[in-house]
């Protein structure tokens, strides 16, 4: 399997604190890759660097064979990296359909002057994408809410909207930052099924989670981050039994 995303020696410092320290991370094409670690391990900081939201203090990032170190977020998104956010970044006053339609931005093309004057061509292209989005909403179970305003939706559904918006851009790599955060147990199961389904239809997914349970059952590979360093990397079973991981999670650190 070829590496889709490859990070080498990635480092980020906040003043004297090294938030992410020489991290190596390889996400292979077609896999469901879990990035886990206790709160404050540097997961979100790492992902922000990998997706161009934050700058790097050291190291390189390669995506689909090209060096993308320091490439800004919107360009990376244009190349096929989509992500969701831990704290909601939805367009609150807009409908679910319009939120998800925004996710198709990079795929919608009708060229000048069709953007400035609604022509039959604009309508046709918009309609095609809108139908695609409706289909996508049915896939994640949001069809009923398609025309509702996002601000009116309960929390679990809002997380699904965020997921749908990221998927809508037909990304090569889908990065999900704690998609299960704050979800009730039943919704977590639904989410796990959606994750498996995403891999089945050909997505490469990187999921960030602090809860090890959700990921062990569905991931192909896991990387564990603690205090800014990688402490384990491999298949879920090996990672789960690793003494360092048990230590980081249960907290039997001799010198802490």
């Amino acid at each position, binding site marked *: 399997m070829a590496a889709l995303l490859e990070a080498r020696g990635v480092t980020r410092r906040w003043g004297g604190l090294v938030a992410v320290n020489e991290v190596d991370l390889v996400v292979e094409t077609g896999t469901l890759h879990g990035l886990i670690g206790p709160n404050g391990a540097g997961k979100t900081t790492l992902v922000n660097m990998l997706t161009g939201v934050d700058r790097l203090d050291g190291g390189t990032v390669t995506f689909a064979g090209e060096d993308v170190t320091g490439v800004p977020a919107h360009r990376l998104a*244009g190349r096929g990296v989509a992500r969701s956010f831990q704290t909601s970044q939805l367009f609150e006053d807009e409908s679910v359909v319009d939120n998800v339609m925004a996710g198709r931005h990079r795929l919608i093309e009708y060229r000048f002057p069709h953007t400035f004057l609604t022509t039959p061509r604009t309508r046709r292209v918009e309609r095609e994408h809108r139908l695609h989005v409706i289909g996508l909403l049915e896939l994640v179970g949001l069809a009923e809410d398609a025309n509702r305003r996002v601000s009116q939706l309960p929390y679990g559904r809002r997380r699904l909207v965020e997921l749908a918006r990221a998927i809508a851009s037909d990304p090569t790599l889908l990065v999900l930052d704690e998609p299960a955060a704050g979800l009730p147990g039943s919704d977590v199961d639904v989410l796990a099924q959606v994750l498996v389904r995403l891999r089945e239809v050909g997505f490469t997914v990187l999921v960030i989670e602090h809860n090890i349970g959700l990921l062990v059952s569905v991931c192909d590979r896991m990387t564990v981050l603690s205090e800014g360093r990688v402490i384990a990397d491999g298949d879920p079973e090996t990672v789960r039994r690793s003494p360092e991981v048990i230590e980081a999670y249960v907290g039997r650190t001799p010198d802490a």
Partner: protein
Amino acid sequence: MSDQITVTDDRRAAGVGDALVTASGGRKVADPGGGRATGAAALLAAAAVAALPLATDYSTTYLLAYIVIIALLGTSLHLLMGLMGVFSLGQAAMFGTGAYVAVVASDELALDGILGLLLVALVGAVLGLVMGAVTLRVTDLYLALATLAVGYIFENVVRNTDWLGGPQGRTGFVITVAGRSLDDPRLLFWVGIVALYLFIVIIWSMRRSKLGRAFMATRESPIAARSIGIDTRRYKLLGFALAGAFSGIAGALYAAWSLVVDPSVFGIDLTLSVLAIAIVGGLRSLPGILIVGAALTYFRNSAADFGAADYVLLVYGSLIVLSLRFLPQGLGGLLASTVTAGTSRMRGRRES
């Protein structure tokens, strides 16, 4: 490798399409722009408004022309503040620049208004781009102050430039369109209404395209916007350029309307009265802004006839306070909720 990915993508798209056909059946995809009937009604209304000067006397037509100029400014505020969420007070600088460029184009360059207005639009767009570029890193109040400062700078530069007439400004210029002078209020009105309709069509079209969603995304969450591939800076610059072009045209028409330009065209008064219109009408609602713009401008100019001349500012202020308290979305918000309630009632009747 990449070929394989494309194949999976196609298959997925087809699968999604199938799921849609079986599951959604005859359910209608909501069209944000409304149906054909709305379009026809809008066309009729537009034609009726354009035909108004055929039925009105000279002074009313003169007032109508002024209303169109205010509407152009209101529309540019709708674009910047309503759609893009940029709190800009830079319209005065764009407006004043348009006025002076129009006068120079006709007086010094002897350009006909058609070319002159194109030049005004171009200069306005460039000024908008510069203002957008300068303020890329600031938001909210800082952006408002920075754009406001541009107006003050221009006012002072023009006041001290003898070539432009200094503090007295310039008079005695004749702005023509296709060889006919714009001092005919009918012609002025029609030139203005063409520009206004063009601007409205552009804004409505943008709102229904990926551009409108890009503006919306940039306004609601720049981080999320960038994460789905939207270059937020590019769209901010585009919005500023469009607003600059049309505010500039408004300024050019104002010069033709008032027959004099002086440095006061860069002043804050005009921007503030248009801002009042935009707040009462609803920043996000073009119909609201247009209706309130026409009504308030008419009221202001005819207040003396009702014996209410002394109360104009009081009425403006009260309207702003009342709308902020009871209609935070302005008249447009009220219109939208009435329409929504109406259609859902109709839908309910049809289904039962």
